[in-house]
């Protein structure tokens, strides 16, 4: 099976629906429009649904004008609202996120909770990406620093930051440091 590529995205050749989420920032709008253009030029272009998590009416109107014939939904950014949209999607739907990294993290988590797999979610993030460390003792997430060791801010355990990365948790494994 030959996948198509667009910048850093790989696209299933038989994609039925592209569910695009963007946070309404200028970069996200530009990249989303460019990607939609690519999708429309596919031999069999998928159904396109655009969800804008923004409360800026100008931005929303601009995008709606540009995508007159596509299914565009504007929603104020609420994870529950996003989840309610995601849970009704069918297999063959692929999710593309264009947003600040923090927003991507939240939307991705919601998508995986309703059943999207990692293969069905792709992201274009903006801004600084905060990397996290999973504490094996209390299971909370801590901010990663440049140090190989951190102290868990929840349970105060000294953690050895490994290079083992969990796609599901979007975090590196922090083992208890043995002195």
């Amino acid at each position: 099976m030959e996948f198509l590529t667009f910048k850093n995205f790989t696209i299933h050749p038989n994609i039925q629906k592209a569910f695009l989420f963007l946070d309404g920032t200028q970069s996200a709008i530009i990249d989303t429009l460019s990607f939609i253009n690519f999708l429309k030029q596919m031999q069999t272009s998928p159904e396109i649904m655009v969800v804008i998590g923004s409360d800026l009416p100008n931005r929303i109107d601009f995008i709606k004008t540009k995508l007159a014939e596509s299914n565009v939904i504007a929603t104020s950014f609420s994870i529950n609202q996003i989840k309610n949209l995601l849970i009704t999607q069918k297999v063959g739907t692929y999710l593309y996120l264009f947003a600040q990294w923090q927003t991507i993290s939240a939307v991705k988590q919601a998508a995986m909770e309703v059943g999207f797999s990692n293969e069905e979610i792709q992201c274009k993030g903006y801004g600084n990406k905060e990397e996290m460390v999973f504490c094996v003792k209390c299971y909370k997430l801590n901010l990663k620093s440049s140090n190989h060791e951190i102290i868990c801010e929840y349970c105060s355990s000294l953690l050895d930051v490994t290079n083992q990365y969990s796609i599901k948790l979007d975090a590196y494994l922090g083992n208890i440091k043995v002195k």
Partner: protein
Amino acid sequence: MTRGKIQVVVKDIKIESPIVKSFKLFPINGVELPRFMGGSYITTYVQPPNKKVLARNYSLISNPKKTEYYQIAIRLSNESKGGSRFWHNDIKEGNCLHISYPKNKFSLSFEAKHHVFFAAGIGITPFLSMIEDVKKNGETFELHYAAKSKELCSFYQALKARYPNEVTFYFSENEQKMTTALLKNQLIGTHVYFCGSEEMMKQFSEAAISFGYPEKRIHFERFSPPNAGTMYPFKVQLKKSNQSFEVPEGETLLEALVKNKIDAPYACTIGGCGSCQIGVLEGEVDHRDEFLTDSERRENSVILTCVSRGKNGCLTLDL
């Protein structure tokens, strides 16, 4: 106990359909059998009089929670090489035999929100234990089960009684067809599982891909090796033991190794598990398995002896 095997006694043989019998296998010494996950299979070792031991793989159909016995169901095959015929005609209650520990290459997806099973004929067997696990996990499922007729549909009454809302039957005698359209419009989070004839699994797998399913949502279990063409003869050289022989037409490399008393590893014998993988030192491999990745095949440094062959003459193996 023979090393790596469990000795069991056959009890409670039941006729499930005119061509399918089920057998309960209890441990000889009364200890609990190892637990297993739905979709697992065992290898049974039976020996017809004056013949060699026949190793045959059968799906476990019993409840994975129950460890007092295992249960298998066997269809009398038209192309039987002796295994199913011996089980149907000669195995009686009270007979003892050895079996392997359970193995699994067709398990439920942990990620799935909903499981959809497609079974044709004896392909129903792995789903019987998988359904038990689905129910235990509090998850949902659908079972679509095709057979020639109700009379030839094994476990029809039990499935209909136990899962009236989840199971749909398709009897070809009544012109009811289990079609690939059933794959469409499944909610995100659904995984699909196929078990049946080679043709059925190919048709459904290809359809799932065409409807946009990612490959990891598609699962299937073979009961026979994929049909990959002529089993032409080729020569084999074993580097370590300094032996050489020919693999004749129609015989697998694994069969030839066993026939020549070479201690070669194996498990599923249908190219799916990788247990029979051997290093290749020289020669080109005609890969016919479903286990190696594309890049592993291109490297040409290993072969799965149960289904793959040597191209262009001679293979030298690290054996």
